[in-house]
């Protein structure tokens, strides 16, 4: 029984350490004072500041627009890519496409950021909304492919044949038979691309410019200047949003699929294969 107590103590400690910083942040967001080391009383003050901070609000909007747009476009391109990979006749072509697809899945963010920066500069593309959007689309496409492809592979071959047999054109077969059948995969891909985009810091940090900023980049630059309880207020709100997202994903049965977790899974799959 003593063993039981020690092991539970250990687990409790791990959980405390895991959650302490998060609740610490949230706790101090209600501080009347301006520091994270002395709680001098309860107030909504920092939330008020946050809500009247027009720069912060426009950054939140930017972040959302980038996330929504990039995930939408990545989903379209990725789905087409998955269909393309599926219909590739030669195994070498298929594997080649898959390997290229996975390059951005395994590359460290700094590398993606730096190489995209070189790329945009090389093309003379000005840094800002456009470059950030393109980058987010780019790093989200592979995950959409990886979500959609298994769904296509699951489709019975005979289903497509049956559609042709019943007189459907290839376009009709695609829109009336294949796409409806892989919709769950497409949705999963979309949601994942969305979280990838919301979560990203490093890539955006490299390719942004001209004053364009997203939440992560903004938090970074504020954090470099020291403690600012407006950031705490922001983190409380973001915590709530994350919680809602997780609950949503949990209900969808795929809570463990943000970007890093996806990479862990990829590594597991590779080692276990």
């Amino acid at each position, binding site marked *: 029984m003593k063993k039981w107590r020690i*092991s539970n103590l250990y687990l409790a400690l*791990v959980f405390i*350490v*895991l959650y302490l*910083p*998060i609740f*610490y*942040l949230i706790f101090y967001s209600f501080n009347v004072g301006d*520091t*994270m*080391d002395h709680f001098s009383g309860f107030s909504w003050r920092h939330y008020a500041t946050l809500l009247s901070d027009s720069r912060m609000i426009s950054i939140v909007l930017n972040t959302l627009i980038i996330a929504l747009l990039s995930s939408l476009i990545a989903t379209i*391109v*990725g789905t*087409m*890519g998955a269909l*393309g990979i599926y*219909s590739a006749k030669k195994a070498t072509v298929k594997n080649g496409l898959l390997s*290229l697809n996975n390059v*951005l899945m*395994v*590359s*460290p963010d*700094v*590398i*993606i950021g*730096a*190489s*995209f*920066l*070189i*790329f945009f500069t090389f093309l003379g593309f000005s840094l800002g909304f456009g470059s950030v959007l393109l980058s987010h689309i780019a790093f989200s*496409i592979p995950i959409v492919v990886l979500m959609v492809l298994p769904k296509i592979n699951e489709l019975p071959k005979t289903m497509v044949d049956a559609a042709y047999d019943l007189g459907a054109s290839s*376009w009709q077969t695609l829109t009336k038979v294949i796409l409806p059948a892989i919709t769950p995969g497409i949705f999963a891909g979309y949601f994942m691309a969305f979280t990838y985009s919301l*979560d990203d*810091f*490093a890539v955006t940090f*490299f390719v942004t410019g001209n004053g364009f900023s997203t939440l*992560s980049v903004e*938090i*970074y630059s504020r*954090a*470099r200047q020291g*403690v600012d309880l407006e950031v705490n207020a*922001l*983190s409380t709100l*973001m*915590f709530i949003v*994350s*919680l809602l*997202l*997780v609950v949503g994903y949990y209900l969808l049965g795929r*809570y463990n699929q*943000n970007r*890093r*977790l996806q990479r*862990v899974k990829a*590594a*597991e799959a590779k*080692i*276990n294969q």
Partner: protein
Amino acid sequence: MHKKATYLIPYLLWIGLFVIAPMALIVYQSFFNITGHFTLGNYEQYLTNGVYLKMTFNSILYALIITLSTLLISYPTALLLNRLKNKQLWLLLIILPTWINLLLKTYAFIGLFSQNGSVNDFLRFVGLGSHQILFTDASFIFVAAYIEIPFMILPIFNSLAELKPSMINASRDLGANSWQTFRRVILPLTMPGVKAGFQAIFIPSLSLFMITRLIGGNRVITLGTAIEEHFLVTQNWGMGSTIGVILILAMFVVMYLTRDRKVKGGRIR
């Protein structure tokens, strides 16, 4: 057949423009110096100038320390979690913090570790006096490990959950005590999980720059910080790309070393 080609264009374009071109460009860029002339000087400098080698060595050392300490904390955690009743729910609670923006978690430590922060309060309370915690190597390692722990627990947990209970029973049946069972059966059979966790943490730890900057202070201590520094501060893209190429090579080495060694027809030891 014409149609097929059309709908593939965006995806192929993406591969060309955002997968092949940037990777090619980073290699290409590594052969140019700051004034835009072709040179092998970056590599030469990297290999001969002690600063770069030392930085690389330190980065690898830090990444190793981070990964191993994460492993040390995560393995027992995964083991204990696996014994709990609602283990999937508890696992979800381990994973939940990974959904909180990385920047925010790091930012929290700026408060916790500051001169008058809670950690120093606690140290004073137990009579150890206050210390400079922020901007030290220890705080950098601690925060990095904190961020990475769930990514190590998850694969180990999964490999433990897959372990058939009859394996453990068989080992006990053959006379092995708890420790021998762990050493000879559980650990080898969960190695794939450990390797996956190692991969998932070691490479990001090499390329970290955000935590280094915020918690480790304004020092260049990882390959990631070095790349960021060269690209965004000193504007020496050639050198930055060279370090990037090194990082990519390091990535391949790690993936090679942690690959599954079980090959068809036999085992390499």
